[in-house]
């Protein structure tokens, strides 16, 4: 019984929509634009968030970084307190390593922009990083060809280099095999021993694709290790079962003793961890998400008004048909369902078209932007939900009005 009524309502609704194709198209256009706007914003925000979280996680979530500047942001950032701090030094690494009990791996890293050259191929401003041997156990990365440098190469400051995907492509453009070849790093000959796996663009700018990694003891020959521009830091990874808070407590004690700080003196170093970055980004993404919701919300609102308007017109046009249906025994809920289905169907169609447009856009963006933009399941569900609910909200009042019509008066209407 219910299914028959449902089927009849759908058939009536479909008939009305097909009979007025232009009107149907124009009214679903509002919802299409609304869903397109709101879900596009969410898709982009989600993709950016995923990319940044991936970049942050590649730094390691159980890693504490000893640095000069803390990773906190905001208007009350007391930069004048931090600017006179010394930068972490390689000599401190050995001390920390010797004294710390809760460290699984520890490394030192510096980096600066230098020129890379191979035959006639030159890359200006390439990010050259100098890693201590242990940093390779702290940072997560993959080598697709060749190898990581050996401990003796690191200690001895051998002139060996590992290249990121983009740099390798730039220096060896014609599918030339780079391993074993010699390139110039800041004017010094360097043998390529490894290639990093392609990672794609990173919002934090820490993608391995654009990095050339050399042993720290080689890097210090052409980098100013005491300069802030080299961005030196010590990275310590906690042993399994050791929390970041425990590791930070231990590192604080060790660093204070290394630097000979008096008991009441402030720390002259910062202990940063990736969740500090995540927290800062959470706030940012929330703001972008809310802004997107407001913009998209207004578009949806306009679309909803469009559907409500069309439904009122539709009820008005079919008033005498409603009268005939009711006089032949149609119940109020049948009339209500008929118009409600029409509104929901219109809205849902608009939503589906909007989602298809976004899907097309993500496919088109795939080849243009070096970042994965995907229409997620949660955004598809949200888009369809909003479409159906807007259909119900905008269609209920006209549909209910139609269901309450007096059959005699409705038949008389021209």
């Amino acid at each position, binding site marked *: 019984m219910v299914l028959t009524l449902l089927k009849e309502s759908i058939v009536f609704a479909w008939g009305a929509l097909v009979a007025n194709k232009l009107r149907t198209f124009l009214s679903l256009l509002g919802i299409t634009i609304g869903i397109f706007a709101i879900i596009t914003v*969410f898709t982009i925000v989600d993709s950016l968030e995923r990319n940044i979280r991936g970049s942050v996680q590649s730094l390691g979530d159980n890693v504490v970084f000893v640095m000069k500047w803390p990773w906190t942001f905001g208007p009350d950032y007391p930069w004048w307190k931090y600017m006179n701090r010394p930068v972490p030094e390689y000599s401190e690494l050995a001390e920390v390593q010797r004294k710390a009990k809760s460290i699984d791996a520890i490394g030192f890293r510096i980096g600066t922009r230098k020129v890379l050259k191979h035959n006639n191929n030159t890359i200006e401003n390439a990010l050259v990083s100098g890693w201590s041997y242990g940093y390779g156990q702290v940072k997560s990365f993959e080598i697709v060809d060749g190898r990581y440098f050996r401990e003796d190469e690191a200690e001895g400051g051998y002139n060996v280099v590992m290249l990121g995907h983009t740099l390798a492509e730039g220096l060896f453009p014609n599918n030339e095999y780079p391993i074993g070849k010699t390139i110039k790093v800041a004017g010094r000959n360097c043998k390529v021993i490894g290639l990093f796996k392609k990672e794609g663009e990173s919002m934090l700018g820490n993608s391995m694709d654009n990095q050339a990694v050399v042993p720290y003891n080689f890097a210090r020959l052409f980098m100013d290790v005491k300069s802030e521009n080299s961005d030196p830091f010590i990275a310590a990874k906690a042993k399994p079962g050791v929390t970041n808070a425990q590791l930070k407590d231990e590192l604080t004690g060790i660093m204070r003793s290394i630097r000979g700080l008096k008991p009441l003196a402030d720390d002259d170093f910062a202990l940063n961890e990736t969740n500090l970055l995540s927290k800062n980004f959470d706030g940012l993404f929330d703001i972008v998400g*809310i802004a997107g919701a407001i913009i998209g919300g207004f578009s949806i609102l306009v679309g909803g008004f469009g559907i409500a308007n069309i439904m009122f017109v539709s009820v008005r046009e079919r008033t005498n048909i409603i009268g005939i249906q009711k006089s032949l025994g149609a119940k109020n809920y049948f009339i209500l369902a008929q118009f409600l289905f029409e509104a929901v169907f219109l809205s849902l169609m608009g939503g589906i078209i909007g989602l298809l447009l976004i899907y097309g856009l993500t496919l088109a963006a795939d080849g243009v932007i070096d970042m994965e933009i995907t229409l997620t399941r*949660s955004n598809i*569900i949200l888009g369809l939900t909003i479409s159906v609910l807007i259909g*119900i909200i905008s269609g209920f009042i006209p549909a209910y009005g139609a269901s*309450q019509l007096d059959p005699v008066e409705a038949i008389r209407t021209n």
Partner: protein
Amino acid sequence: MAQVTRPKDIRIVTIIALILVLLAFPMLFTPSIKRMGDFIPMVLGIIITMQFVSLIGIWHMKQWGVQLFIIMFCIRVITFMFLDLYEFRFFFNIFYSLTFIVFFLIHYRKMDTNL
């Protein structure tokens, strides 16, 4: 079918309730709700939409409107409790919904029993 006259207080309360329900709709898009799960915005959206429908019924002085509003209020409270949303809006929602229900129940007997 005789039309039941809409009392002034029902008119005012329904308009306020409609505004509050429609203002709750953008809540579905907030990142905090999205993070709770794929289907949470859908569940909350259905509750808000049903509350809207119930208020249209109350506006037309129909008993089903009051019944639907009370059912949706209970479902909303249970859902918020399941989601651990014990925040200001939760208690504010209980407060104003209960106030509206009292007003609706005062006029319940005068309302139409049909759809």
